[in-house]
């Protein structure tokens, strides 16, 4: 992996419009049963505009930034050797159906451990007003030659 990735900033992704049915589909896929995730009336009764996305839904938007990272021509990251090491989401507010979200990636850490390399990718996700919604942080481990 190219150590010069450290500190690199990337252009914002195209806006992602969070669809109500996408939230329901994702909710079912992660075994969510809360009415807030599935039922518009229940979500509105709790003060939300529409159904609330599960806490890990942000990965769908974040994924577009990880694709930027893996496609970086001088990055030297072999996708077939990448293992997900850790993941974190830090929310200012939940994601709600109808949100239009944009993610901006920065590479906050690159290090080598034995034969392996680790990269920390931080994606800041904001709404259409530019207000922060969630930051998604992934640590990816790139396995070295065995």
């Amino acid at each position, binding site marked *: 992996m190219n150590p010069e990735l450290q500190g690199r900033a990337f252009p914002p992704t195209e806006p992602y419009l969070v669809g109500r049915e996408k939230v329901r589909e*994702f909710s079912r*896929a*992660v*075994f969510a049963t809360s009415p807030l995730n599935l039922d518009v009336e229940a979500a509105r009764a709790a003060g939300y505009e529409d159904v609330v996305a*599960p*806490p890990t839904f942000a990965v769908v938007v974040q994924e577009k930034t990880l694709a930027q990272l893996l496609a970086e021509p001088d990055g030297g990251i072999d996708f077939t050797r990448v293992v997900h090491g850790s993941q974190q989401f830090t929310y200012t507010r939940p994601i709600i159906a109808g949100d239009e979200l944009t993610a901006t990636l920065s590479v906050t850490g690159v290090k080598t451990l034995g034969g392996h390399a680790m990269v920390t990718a931080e994606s800041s996700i904001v709404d259409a007003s530019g207000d922060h919604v969630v930051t998604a942080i992934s640590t990816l481990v790139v396995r070295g030659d065995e």
Partner: protein
Amino acid sequence: MIELAVGDVVAENSYHLTRDSLVRYAGASGDFNAIHYRDDIAGEVGLDGVLAHGMLTMGLAVQPVVDWLGARGTVRDYQVKFTRPVVVDPVHGADLAVVAKVGAVDADGARIDLTVSFGDLTVLGKAQVRVALASA
């Protein structure tokens, strides 16, 4: 305000994953890495079998907390380390058990620590959910 003490189990649940669950998650999330549905490719890269997406395990592990919270609060932070793979057998699937316990209590909420087990082994490390609770 909900009364909480460190060590309280606030929620627990178990989940039966099948290959169907993995295909469903692949479609919902957009993660179509073939190691999550093709035995031949999983074998070629040296895995013991088709694996559940780490993000599927992370996604379901927080659900008992989400259900316990309901509309009384929100998840402010959620982090995990992926420490062991979950191999999903084509016939028998894989069973995961989640226990959510209070790890710390602070002014506006709590840290809930998750133990996620596959058989006798845990598959997530430092799995922590920070929740903000609405004041009464």
